Every structure is written in structure tokens, then in C-alpha cells.
């Protein structure tokens, strides 16, 4: 059993608060991802769990042990945690074996056992044939695996990963994703994973915690976060989305649109929600249907890129450019520059509070 309990944790550097009050319990064997743009506080959070940073207030427990709290602080070397660093932090003066064996040497594990366990781990991270190599003779992906092996060799209660894949190329990143997930399942450990890449977060996590400016924006399963973003920041950060400013009234949302004659009425669509007044409608590109002949909203197809399974389009709607991912077979049915009709199949309505206006189009 290895859970992590964070209670009212905050962190300030001088007068700047970088983490606002945060509480959560990471369950045993849970894969938790801290997601957010750079500088949002996610790495600080992770480093507090590791013990490299000390929370300004609050308490951190691993299982039932308080590792950081009122008058108590367990240094990182006594926390029994495995960690993979963004820069890998593979020691350049030790070969693969010595790097991985290091935590065991610290624990004074007998030599034979060290050999066995290191070999087993190297097997698990597919490095068996590189035992004697020095780090500078390894590729980025292999160094990454050394770091992972070193973090796992002691059977840690908790594994922390700080943007471990950000220095790898796209293809390797994708395969490492599965490897890490696989390792987590096999070893049955609790993982806290930090990333700014939402695809990574979606693919691997049981639970995603979205951070911005030191505050939690939303906590939930990947699907929950994607389909029901709590606010415009989350909607925008996770996945692709279009924002449209409009006015909600009983049964209807009107889009004032771009420049048009005052007599002309804007476009609108049916709405059965509770919100009234200025709103922001958020719709994902894949949640729209584009047709040549009928629909609720109309616009002009300005660009279309045929991607095989889909047709990636830009539709100009009263001066607003919407990204629409339409079915592949729509390509060629509608010419660039021709009028099109759009239906919003699934969308979200946020109050227009004037904040979080990232890419809001009005």
C-alpha cells in the first residue's frame, strides 16, 4: 500500500505564492498526472513530494508516515521514492550497471543480490545488452531507460517522473509512454507524473490534475477532463477547441458575428441550458458536422486539408475562423470558398466573465 496524502499544501518563494492551497490523496497504484503549462507549479509540487522543496505550509504523508509537515521533515534520501528527472540525470562517470546499482549499494545490499536485481531491472527496461556501456555511448531513449531502471531498482513505494519524455523525439516518446505505463502495472507502484503534454497525460493517467498559475483547475479522469472541462483554461489546454462569444437567452444562443448591417440579425442556435446573458461557447473541432446543403449555422470554407481519415478545415463564420475536423469524405464535396453549414453536436457553454480569453473569437 502506498498512497500519498497532501493536505493544505502551499509553497511561496518570499512573497510570491507558487502553489495555492492543495489537498488530494493519490491512491495506491494510481497513475496521477500533474498537467499544466510551464511555470504552473506542477514541478514544484512534484519536488515537494520528493523532498527537494519544502512546503511553506501543509502536510505531506506517504502511506501513514508524515514526510513533511509541522516540525517534521524527512529528507529525500529517506523517503524511499524513485524519481526520473527531465534531464535523465544519468551519472556520466558511471556505466549503466553502476548507475542502476547505486541505490542498492547505498542500502548495502549484498553484491550477489545487487547483480541479480540490476540484471532483472535492466531486462525489464530492455537494456540487458548495454550493461557495460558508459552514458555517453547511449542514445537519449536508452539513457531514459537507465534513469527509469535506477528509479525502480529499489522497489520504491512511489515513482515520480518529471517530464521524462520531453527530450525524446516524437516516435520514441510514444513508445516510451506505453513502456512506462507497462512498468507501472507490472510493478504495481503509485506514479506521479509531471508533463505539459496533454496527449501524454490523456494516454497514461488514471487521474489528471490540471494546474495553472499555481492553482488546481480541475481534477478527474482523462475522459472527464476532456469532455467536461471545468473552465475555459482546461478546455483550451486539453485538446483543441474553438471559442465563440454569444448571448444566451431562453431557448437560444445568438452569435453577433462580424461586421454586418445593423438591420441584419446574427446567427444563432437552439439552447436548453440555464445560462443567460453573455456566454462563451466552446466546441471541439471534431464535434461539429459540416455539410454543403443544410445545418444550423452557416459560413464559408476557407481552407481544407485532406488527412485521409479526416478533413481538417477552417470555416469562416462571420469573420471568425473555426477549426473543423470533418469526415474524410467531405473533402472534395465542398470547394474552398464555397458556403457550408455547421451543426454543433457537442459543446460547452461558459459564462463570459471576461477572463481566460485565450483564443476567444468574437
Amino acid at each position, binding site marked *: 500500500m502506498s498512497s500519498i496524502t497532501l493536505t493544505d499544501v502551499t509553497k511561496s518563494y518570499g512573497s510570491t505564492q507558487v502553489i495555492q492551497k492543495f489537498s488530494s490523496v493519490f491512491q495506491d497504484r494510481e497513475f496521477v498526472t500533474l498537467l499544466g503549462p510551464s511555470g504552473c507549479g506542477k514541478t514544484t509540487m512534484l519536488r515537494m513530494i520528493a*523532498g527537494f*522543496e*519544502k512546503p511553506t505550509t501543509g502536510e505531506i504523508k506517504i502511506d501513514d508516515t508524515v514526510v513533511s509537515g509541522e516540525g517534521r*521533515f524527512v529528507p*529525500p*534520501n529517506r523517503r524511499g521514492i524513485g524519481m526520473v*528527472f527531465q534531464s535523465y*540525470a544519468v*551519472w556520466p562517470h558511471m556505466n549503466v550497471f553502476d548507475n542502476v546499482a547505486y*541505490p542498492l549499494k547505498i542500502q548495502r545490499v549484498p553484491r550477489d543480490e545487487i547483480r541479480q536485481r540490476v540484471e532483472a531491472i535492466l531486462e525489464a527496461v530492455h537494456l540487458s545488452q548495454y550493461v557495460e556501456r558508459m552514458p555517453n555511448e547511449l542514445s537519449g531513449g536508452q539513457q531514459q531507460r537507465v534513469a527509469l531502471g535506477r528509479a525502480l531498482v529499489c522497489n520504491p513505494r512511489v515513482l515520480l517522473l518529471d517530464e521524462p519524455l520531453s527530450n525524446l523525439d516524437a516516435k520514441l516518446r510514444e513508445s516510451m509512454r506505453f513502456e512506462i505505463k507497462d512498468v507501472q502495472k507490472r510493478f504495481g507502484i503509485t506514479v506521479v507524473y509531471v508533463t505539459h503534454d496533454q496527449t501524454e497525460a490523456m494516454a497514461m493517467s488514471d487521474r489528471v490534475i490540471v494546474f495553472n498559475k499555481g492553482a488546481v483547475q480541475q481534477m478527474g479522469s482523462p475522459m472527464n477532463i476532456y469532455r467536461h472541462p471545468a473552465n475555459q483554461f482546461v478546455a483550451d489546454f486539453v485538446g483543441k477547441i474553438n471559442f465563440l462569444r454569444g448571448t444566451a437567452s431562453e431557448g437560444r444562443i445568438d452569435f453577433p458575428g462580424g461586421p454586418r448591417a445593423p438591420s441584419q440579425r446574427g446567427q444563432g442556435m437552439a439552447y436548453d441550458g440555464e445560462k443567460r446573458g453573455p456566454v462563451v461557447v466552446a466546441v471541439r473541432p471534431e464535434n461539429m458536422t459540416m455539410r454543403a446543403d443544410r445545418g444550423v449555422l452557416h459560413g464559408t470554407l476557407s481552407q481544407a486539408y485532406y488527412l485521409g481519415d479526416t478533413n481538417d478545415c477552417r470555416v469562416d463564420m462571420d469573420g471568425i475562423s473555426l477549426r473543423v475536423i470533418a469526415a474524410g469524405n467531405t473533402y472534395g464535396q465542398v470547394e474552398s470558398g464555397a458556403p457550408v453549414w455547421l451543426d454543433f453536436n457537442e459543446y460547452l457553454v461558459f459564462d463570459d466573465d471576461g477572463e481566460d480569453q485565450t483564443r476567444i473569437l468574437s
Partner: protein
Amino acid sequence: MFFTPFGAALFETGGNRVSVQASFQENKRFHLDVKAALITAIVAFLLVFNVFPMAYLVFRSFFGENGFTLETFKRIYTYPLNWNALRNTLVTAGLSMVFGVMIAFPLAWLVGRTDMYGRKFFRTLFVMTYMVPPYVGAMAWLRLLNPRVGTLNVFLANLFGLSENPLNIYSIGGLVWVLTTFYYPYAFITISRAMEKMDPSLEEASKISGASPLKTVMTVTFPVMLPSIVAAGLLVFVSAASCYGIPSIIGAPGQIDTVTTRIIDYVYVGSAEGLTDATTLAVSLMLIANLVLYVSTFICGKKQYITVSGKSTRPNIMELGRWRLPVTLLVTAFALIVVVIPFATVAMASFTTNLGKPLSASNFTTRYWHILFTRKGILDTVKNSLLSASIAATAGIAISCVMAWLLTRTQAKGRRIPDFLITVGSGTPSVVIALALIMTMSGRFGINIYNTLTIMIVAYMVKYLLMGMRTVVSAMSQIHPSLEEASLISGAEWQRSFWDVTLPLIAPSVVAGWFLIFMPSFYELTMSTLLYSTDTKTIGYELFTYQTYHSQQTASAIATGILGMVVIVNWILNKLTKGEFSI
């Protein structure tokens, strides 16, 4: 990798790397106290042996018995000899600066950025000259360009059928020539380093925009490098102005005084008034040097945009095409004239019986080498120098390691104070440091270490500590903190992680830093000239007395020995650190 007295300090300003919050140690008051105690100890050392003596020097030159006065300055400079000395210092240092940069920039560019033949070799050669004591150059050129019997002079006169020898080393021109050939490496090193750090895509962007290689050098490389070039020039200026070895060997026979030689003359007079006059001259020199240091570090340093990236990038190499061979020949000629011929001259002189005749089988002797290895007087000075330089280097590198830790791994308050003091100390002319120590450490203020090796060690540390510190700091800042964190998270205590991870990674730099303090301390001349006593003569001073009074051949043998040592140390460092370090 190499460091110049304060040229290296300039680069540091760009490297505002994110320091690691070592906050996992914060909870223990013990660690905070260790930091505070270490800073206090280092600051205390610097206050006593660096700040206080300098401050006293300034005080004494401005305050007479009746309070503040400029009387001494007025008296000193109404004496034409001193006025001339100041003028000579400024003129020779200024010209050396101009010529030094004019030589160093193209050389650095050719060696660093073109496909000239033998780049690596030339680079090592020019950098190594940096570690050779300047007085060796003076000795060599004295023999080459003596107005009556100078080898080169005679050769030139015969070549062109001149009735008299064309060149005279005992002149302002001669002084400038030797100063330039011995201080341009300072500029070469500073500029090379900046060039290495310059992002090559800046030049690529210029080329892709259609600029020719020459146009690129003139419109991108040169302007981007300008702050470093200015800094390099100022470094040459201060070094040349503070130099004693060259003007004392070349200037004295030609009756060309400089501020440094005047200061030492005044000290040798020995009277109270002599000391006051020396002090006043020293303060003038110190003010000039510190002003230049200030401009260089805080004005040029701020403009060093090139170092922002901080990472070393692979420079793009320009193909010289049909110019490749001619350019290589030109640089070879330069190296021959400036490095090979002078050093060979000194080496040959050490084997020559009669210096008036060329070296030949009948004029060959190993007598002077025999003297070098047997005469007790010389061996004693070698022992003194070895001892004091080793202690200075060991203590200095210990302080350097602590400073590196404080600067790169902690947020301790006040950690910049010793850093600043060490930088200022190194920028202060040697003659000023020595004089300040004499004035304050002879018992007047409760400390009497005059006439001991201790005062030499202290002086060497004040002057050369920066070189060691920069080396270790730079090595330490290149070790990503996560390497240490990875060890902590693996379960190691911080002591263990220092031992297992940090130390092995910085060890080559620590060794290199040790030698960077040791070598200049070992053959030091200027400070030793003022601080020696009968029992504490150093090899540098011994060489100087042999050169000036007894036997130029013996002096040449000593100088050749030092040259050999420089080469060997350089080679060891290269091997030890797999080419990463050389002096």
C-alpha cells in the same frame, strides 16, 4: 578551458543559471550556520589580507598628519621622473592594448572559426604562452634586439647591408613590443572563449541573408563580440600597466621608468618618505586598474549578449579556400617570431659559454644547468617557491571549492561578497598588493608576518585565487543539480552524494584550478621582489638577480627550467582531463 584574471569574471555574469533551492537542508539550522560560518571565515580572511591593506594604502596616500591632503600626489607628480613614469605606463599599456587586440582577434578567429592548418596546435601554443612568465620574454628580446649585439639586429643589418643595427630594444617601442607579445594571449583567450560561446546560427542567419563571409565577420561576428573584445583589450591594458618584470629588465638599461619600477625603487630607498611616495604611486596605479576592472566587469560585462545561451556550441568553420596555405604560413611566421624564436633564444643562452658569440660546439656548455641543479642558493629558492606556491594553491583551491558550492548550490545571503572581494583582489596590480601587505603586516597592526613565507603565500592567494575559483565554479555549474538529486533520491546522504557524484565530476577542474594558482605563484616575480627576505627568496626573484647582476646564462637556465615545467604541467593536465583542460 582556461581562465584569465578577470576576463573569466566577465563571462560569469551572463550565466544566470537557475540556482537550486537546497531547501531540503533548510530545516536544519546546522546547515545554515555552516554556510554563514564559511562565508564569515572567507570574508574575514579577505578583509584582513585584502580589503584592509588596500584601504590603508589609499588612506595613507590621502591623509597626512593634518587630515585630508593631496600634497603627496602633488609632490610626487611635480617630480618629472614620476610624471614620465606615469606617461610611459599609460602609453606602453595603451599601445600594447591596441596591438594586442589587433593580433588577438584575427588569430582567435583563424584558430576558432576557419579551416586553417594546425588550428589545434596553434591554439595550444598561443594559450601556453599565457602561462610563461613575462620576464622570460624580456630576457629573450634583450638578446635578440640589443642595439649593439642583438642576434636579430645583427642578422637584419647584414641582410639589408645596413651600417648600423636597425632596432633598439631599450626604447618605448621595444617595451611595447615585448609587452604586446607577452600579453596578447590574454586577449586571445578571452576572445576565443567568447567566440566559442557565440551561437553559430547568428552567423548562419547573416549568410542566409546573402552576406559574404567577410561581410558576416564585419557586421555580425565583430559587433556581437565587441564587448568581449573591449574587455580583452582592457585586460591587456591592466596587465601591461601592472607589469614589473618586463620594464624592469628592458626599461632599466634604457632608463625608461614605469610606475611599477618607480614604486619598487621607492620601496628600496627604504625611508618613511620613500614608502609614502611608493604608496602614492601605487594608489594611482590601483585607481587606474580598479577603474578599468569596474568598466570591464560591470559595463562591458552587462552587454555580453553572446554568453546568454551559455552552452558551448559547435562553431561553424569557414573554408579559407586558396587562402588556406598563405594564411597558415603567416600564422606560422607569427608563431616563430613571437613564441619559438624567443624561447629558443633563452634555451640556447643557457648552453652558451660566451654570450657575445653564437652558439657552437666550442661555445657550448652545460655548466649553467649544472649550477641550476647544484648551487644551494638556487635550490633553496626553488624549495621556497615550491612550498609557498603549493600552500597557496592548496588553500586557494579549498576556498575555491567552498565558494563554488556557495555560489552554485546555495542561496546563502552574502555569498556574493567574497566573490566580489576575490575578483577585486585579482584585478589589483601585484606591486600594489605587495606594498599594501608590507605596510600593514609588519607589526604595526598586531600582525607581523613580514620576512616570512606566510606573507608571500597570502599575497599569491590574493592575486591568483580568482583563477582557481572560476575554474571550479564553472565546473560545478556545469553539473546539473539533478545529478546530485538523483543520488539523494537513491538514498544517499548529502555527504555521500558529494563524494560519489559531485567530486568525481569536478575533480579534473579542481586539479586544473590548483595548477592555475600554483604555476604563477611558483615563478612570481613582482610581489616576491618586495616581500622576500634573505631566507625566503623565491625562484622568480633569484632569476631576476642572476639576469640583472650575475649571469644571464644561469638566469636563462632557470627560465628554461620554468618553461619546461609549464609545458609538462600543460601536458599532464591535458592527459589527466582527456584534453578538456589545459592552461
